[in-house]
């Protein structure tokens, strides 16, 4: 019997029992184990298989409960296992309207990244199985999240398991990438870019990282952290990014009726009166400098100097490459 069938048999058996099944009963009666028991498989091999199956099912979100000996909770020899129906199933009183399903269907289609796309589809399938007929799908809208960073999937997995990650991070201007150890707390898309927000063990504080600057594979360590640290992390990350944008406002001179004017004026905020130019908030000096460089002579950075220098150095480097390319 293939392992997936053994797993499903195990779920059916554990859900059908109120008082729980002992390991012994499971190994000798649940189809998938029973045949191997009958064929004389070694007991400890079967027990290992059962332990693995339990872990895999918990990974799928199946709530397997262990009922130990009341006198000695650490003694698992007589432990019983069960899956409480109420915790396994979607709550009985949860219902979705056709309008809600239409919005969720739109929401489920935004992902290009494989594991999130598959997750959204599986979630939708479970909800649709509640037996709702979709009336009118929302057509004509195609919201999409671009996600090209390979670091996203391992970071997401590490967050789910509350495990510390480590990776090489390239800060612009640094000669060498630096190894960071981070408790990953939230992944945030802000202004079209993905950020990791987490507790940075190297500096002992929460920090925000751009996924595009992660220069190595993300290593998910075996070190766990307190999941409570994740509570409200998304809000803290957003507040942090917005505060930075609030504080950093470039003063720019923009030629009228150009691409730069069209793109930048939308984002401008009021500056001091009688100031020449527009004030545009930005989060990351390097990212903003990339954009401003593309506008060439359409925009001139007045301040800050750091941004101006970053734009000038990009243009100078571009000039060199273009002169070189013959």
């Amino acid at each position: 019997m293939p392992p997936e069938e053994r797993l499903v048999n195990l779920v059916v058996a554990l859900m059908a029992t109120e008082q729980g099944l002992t390991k012994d009963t499971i190994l000798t009666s649940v189809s998938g184990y029973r045949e191997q028991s009958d064929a004389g498989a070694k007991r400890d091999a079967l027990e290992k298989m059962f332990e693995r199956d339990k872990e895999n099912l918990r990974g799928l979100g199946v709530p397997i409960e262990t009922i130990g000996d009341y006198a000695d909770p650490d003694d698992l020899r007589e432990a019983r296992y069960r899956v409480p129906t109420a915790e396994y199933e979607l709550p009985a009183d949860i219902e979705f309207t056709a309008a809600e399903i239409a919005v969720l269907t739109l929401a489920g289609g935004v992902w290009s990244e494989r594991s999130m796309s598959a997750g959204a589809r599986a979630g939708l399938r479970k909800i649709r199985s509640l037996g709702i007929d979709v009336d009118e799908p929302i057509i004509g809208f195609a919201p999409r999240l671009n996600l090209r960073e390979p670091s996203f999937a391992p970071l997401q997995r590490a967050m789910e398991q509350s495990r510390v990650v480590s990776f090489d991070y390239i800060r612009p201007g640094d000669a060498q990438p630096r190894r960071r150890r981070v408790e990953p707390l939230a992944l945030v898309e802000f202004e079209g870019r993905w950020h990791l927000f987490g507790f940075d063990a190297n500096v002992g504080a929460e920090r925000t990282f751009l996924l595009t600057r992660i220069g190595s594979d993300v290593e998910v360590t075996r070190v766990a952290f307190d999941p409570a640290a994740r509570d409200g992390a998304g809000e803290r990350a957003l507040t942090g990014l917005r505060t930075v944008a609030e504080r950093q406002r470039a003063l720019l001179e923009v030629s009228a009726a150009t691409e730069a004017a069209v793109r930048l004026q939308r984002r401008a905020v009021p500056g001091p009166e009688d100031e020449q130019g527009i004030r545009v908030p930005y989060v990351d000096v390097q990212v903003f400098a990339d954009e401003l460089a593309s506008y060439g002579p359409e925009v001139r950075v007045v301040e800050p100097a750091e941004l101006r220098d970053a734009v000038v150095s990009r243009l100078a480097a571009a000039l060199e490459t273009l002169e070189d390319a013959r």
Partner: protein
Amino acid sequence: MSPSPQLATDRAALMLQLVPYLIGKGEVSVVEAAEDFDIPPETMRAMVQRLTVIGLPGEGGFWQMANDLFDIDWDLLDAEDVIVITNTVGLERSPRLTAREAAALLAGLQLAASLPGVGDSGVVQGLLAKLARGAGQTPAEVIVAPAPVDAVRTTVAEALRRGVAVSFTYRAPDAPETTRTVDPAKVSISGGQWYLQGWCHMREAMRTFHLDRVSDPVLTATPATHASEPVPELFEPAEGDDIVELRYRRSAAPLLTEYLRAAETAGDGEWRTARIRVADARSLKRLAARGGGGVGILGPEQARRAALEWVRAGLAQYS
């Protein structure tokens, strides 16, 4: 369609979803079920057949009785390739959402909520609460902060919803302003940027408009009669475009993703070359300037000159 799942755990997850799905459907063809599960039809058929060996444990060492197992209408499957589940022994109701599933839907919802007419319907708030309650595990915080929605976005979305043409002023880079009337077919958000795809009355063809470049939109009373024509992919290169040869640093490749998708590339060292198609070779001056030295233009010479002048003029402002 995705291939069959490789991991036994993933296949088990599908089987757990299959029973409530089949109960909900009543009767469903193998092809439709396969589509809904995003697996090949033969995988779906095999999964349904194998379902019938799954069931409750045998009592006291006996093998299971027939009604202890899941069962299907075999005649219907053999004759018409249609699935009907005839006996269930559990799993009737859908499992709760996993952390991954809830996170994926919650983040998608935040983005969808920024669409005018979707977010302000009160539906989103209700959904957020229901998804939180329907999840068996605490989802990881995956947050999407949508850009503010302005009058341009609201008006264009309204035109799409009403099925009427919309008129606006459009300023494409390096081109004079034009007034366009467009039958809206699709509003897309990609990488935080908003686009309108629609049938342009002036060009008499489907066109894509970046909404940042749109101003003074006005709803018309004209029905959008061409909106149902085929809409091309968002960044699909049009035919008969300019061909440009680029030289680029490996680290600049992400900047060129949209161009490189359909390009011939060569080299695998620090510097590579690519022949790309663009609507307008002049537009590459902006790309070269943004590339900060990572993007050079090998030809045509006139594109290279345009980029050189662009970068020089940019630098001259600071000297």
